[in-house]
């Protein structure tokens, strides 16, 4: 067990490693290895067809063999892609990283993105988030379409798989249907971790319904706590265990201000900006802020987006994290090897295995 005081929930930390316009692997590798050095739960890499930059899932796959413990969570949009391909790619990221994959589903609302595909007209966010949730639901079915022990290699009968442990999912949604099973065997984590940015009401509903981790961009402690409570309540209403949903505060960080913030303490805390709350100050005060919010139970942890990727991630890992570790609030090593283990989330039970009669 970790050294955290009894009764206190684990603190979870994640960071974005977005490097605009960077196509080579090496700068990403430096950032992700740095985050792993800080024992962070996971890194995210944003992706959108509308913006320049490489395919995010590809970049994190490229880094999987260069890292050993840190979770890898790319954004993969669901509006113009094929759900069958998306679930296969995310499951494969889990295979190549040996159980460290996550997936941040997102939608494409723009006309420019629609024109890149020329396949469907732009739609409103409510419909697209509904569809995104449906894609996650189909993906979970496809991840379960192979039971963990479907591969039997039974030389006596000549059977490589037990076909009774493979399942057609027959998912029928308003915009797509999938027959299944997946071509990819069930990934190491059972289901890679689904991280939803709960920034709009539609996205928040999808998060409560489908996410393992929800990101909430609220600057005020009371509003952050209220958002967490609302997400957990909604998850419970939907029949989920609210303790199986981690809520992380999304915070942009600018750590250019020396050891401590210019203002003593963190005063009014992060400033609300158009792109979400922004913390501007020093790494020591950031540690204070994280500790306070976590003690108050306002969030299960933080997802931090460095304003300057090179400078701020380095200060986060080399100054803020050691302070949190020193106070016994954050792990000093990874006790487990999968992203689910870092997050304290159980490996999901296969939805088909429980239904079928095992011979």
């Amino acid at each position, binding site marked *: 067990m970790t050294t955290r005081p009894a009764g206190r929930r684990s603190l979870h930390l994640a960071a974005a490693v977005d490097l605009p316009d960077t196509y080579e692997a090496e700068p990403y590798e430096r950032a992700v290895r740095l985050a792993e050095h800080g024992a962070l739960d996971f890194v995210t890499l944003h992706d959108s067809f509308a913006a320049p930059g*490489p395919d995010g899932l590809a970049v994190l796959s490229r880094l999987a*063999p260069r890292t050993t413990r840190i979770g890898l969570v790319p954004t993969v949009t669901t509006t113009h892609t094929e759900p069958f391909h998306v679930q296969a790619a995310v499951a494969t990221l889990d295979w190549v990283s040996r159980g460290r994959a996550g997936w941040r589903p997102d939608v494409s609302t723009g006309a420019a993105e629609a024109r890149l595909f020329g396949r469907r007209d732009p739609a409103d966010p409510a419909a697209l988030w509904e569809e995104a949730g449906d894609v996650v639901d189909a993906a979970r079915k496809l991840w379960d379409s192979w039971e963990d022990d479907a591969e039997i*290699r039974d030389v006596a009968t000549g059977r*490589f798989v037990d076909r009774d442990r493979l399942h057609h999912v027959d998912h029928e949604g308003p915009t797509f249907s*999938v027959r299944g099973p997946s071509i990819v065997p069930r990934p190491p984590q059972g289901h890679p971790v689904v991280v939803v940015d709960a920034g709009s009401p539609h996205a928040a509903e999808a998060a409560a319904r489908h996410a393992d981790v929800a990101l909430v961009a609220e600057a005020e402690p009371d509003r952050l706590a209220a958002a967490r409570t609302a997400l957990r309540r909604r998850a419970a209403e939907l029949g989920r265990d609210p303790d199986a949903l981690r809520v992380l505060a999304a915070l942009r960080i600018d750590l250019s201000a020396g050891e401590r913030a210019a203002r003593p303490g963190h005063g009014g805390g992060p400033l609300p900006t158009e792109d979400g709350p922004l913390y501007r100050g020093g790494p020591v005060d950031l540690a204070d802020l994280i500790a306070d919010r976590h003690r108050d139970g306002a969030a299960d942890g933080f997802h931090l987006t460095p304003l300057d990727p090179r400078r701020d991630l380095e200060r986060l890992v080399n100054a803020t994290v050691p302070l949190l570790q020193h106070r016994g609030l954050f792990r000093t090593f990874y006790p487990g090897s999968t992203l689910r283990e870092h997050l304290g989330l159980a490996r999901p039970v296969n939805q088909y295995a429980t239904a079928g009669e095992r011979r």
Partner: protein
Amino acid sequence: MTSTSSDETPRQVHLAAHFPGVNNTTVWADPRSRSQIDFTSFEHLARTAERGLFDFFFLAEGLRLREHKGRIHDLDVVGRPESITVLNALAAVTDRLGLAATVNATFNEPYETARRFATLDHLSRGRAAWNVVTSSDAFTGENFRRGGFLDRADRYTRAAEFVDVARQVWDAGAERAFRHAGQHFTVEGDLGPARPPQGHPVVIQAGDSDEGREFAASAADVIFTRHGTLEAGRAFSADVKGRLARYGRAQGDLKIMPGVTFVLGDTAEEAQEKAAEIRRQQVSPQNALLTLEQVWGVDLSAYDPDGPLPDIDPVPGTGLSQGRTHRGDVFELAEKWRALSRDKGLSIRQTVIETTRRQSFIGTPAAVAAEIDTFVQAGAADGFILVPHLTPGGLDEFVDQVVPLLQERGVFRTEYTGTTLRSHLGLPVPAPCHERIPTA
């Protein structure tokens, strides 16, 4: 090279490795057989191919599990990762090896596919290849939004247009707009992903049909084919390369690389014995009956695989087996197989072993090296895509024993001279289309 008597350098052999995963030649019952899904297996085979200075590593694609009699086929290796994702991970553990992924042009969209291959090319510093395949299969379509069925001719027009749009995206790079309005796609954007290091990732085309050959002559850098003999190979090569001129392309612009299996032994007899044993493992009694059912179109489970062929006639078009079907006249095929069985006194299993044989190099390392060299010098192929029968160690012997002999013959590189797949294959980096000088 100084070993040749003339001043002509012998034609150089190109080699690639096909990962032996889901494939009816992969022997999973062998005690040395390991996981077809764990990354360690991919890493072992790719590192071995790179140690052998191969041009590229090749992954096939699966979009739906095969079914037979309405149930999932359970006799061969099933289950594989998504190709491009695995290759991106392999880019981290290899330096020079080309990385080829099969991606279907029927169930994907050109912009997304172009962007994914551009990314693989960037992350591998110029080692990406795309094996373009098509499908006319409504069965597979049930996994996709489009869910569509394209007839045989349409799927090649779609594929050609698909590749054309992808090249426009690559050429546009992060600076230019692109716009395409055609029969299958209407696509436009203000900019694309940054132009890939190879300009265009290498395009591979698989297939021997007339439409496939024409598509390869117009659009592919490598054609992945199968043909059994030196004569058939030369005829194929002459036909395909003869089509290049009408697209303004030179003979060297398209490399012909048949897929082949191989079996090595210390003596010719030992190699033949090993090959026969491998064939028995590939064609189990259950697999022999299943192969026959795919031709006959009826349930033959009551037949003895070690007994004679059924004397009943095939029932074509039953949809008995999906995900792989026999084309052509099944009556003719059944009669041919029955005649073979009668003439040679072969059982069902022996007949299937005999008739489903594919191009294979069997012999001592020296004999195999000589045969490969002969094919290439005769112009029957530019090289081969090797299909080992074991995961992941199936390439080890070839790299340790045959590659050095090809090097001694002066027909295979002794080190990589370039860093990109195009340079391994001797293919130029294409100029962006907006910089090409218009002809006439």
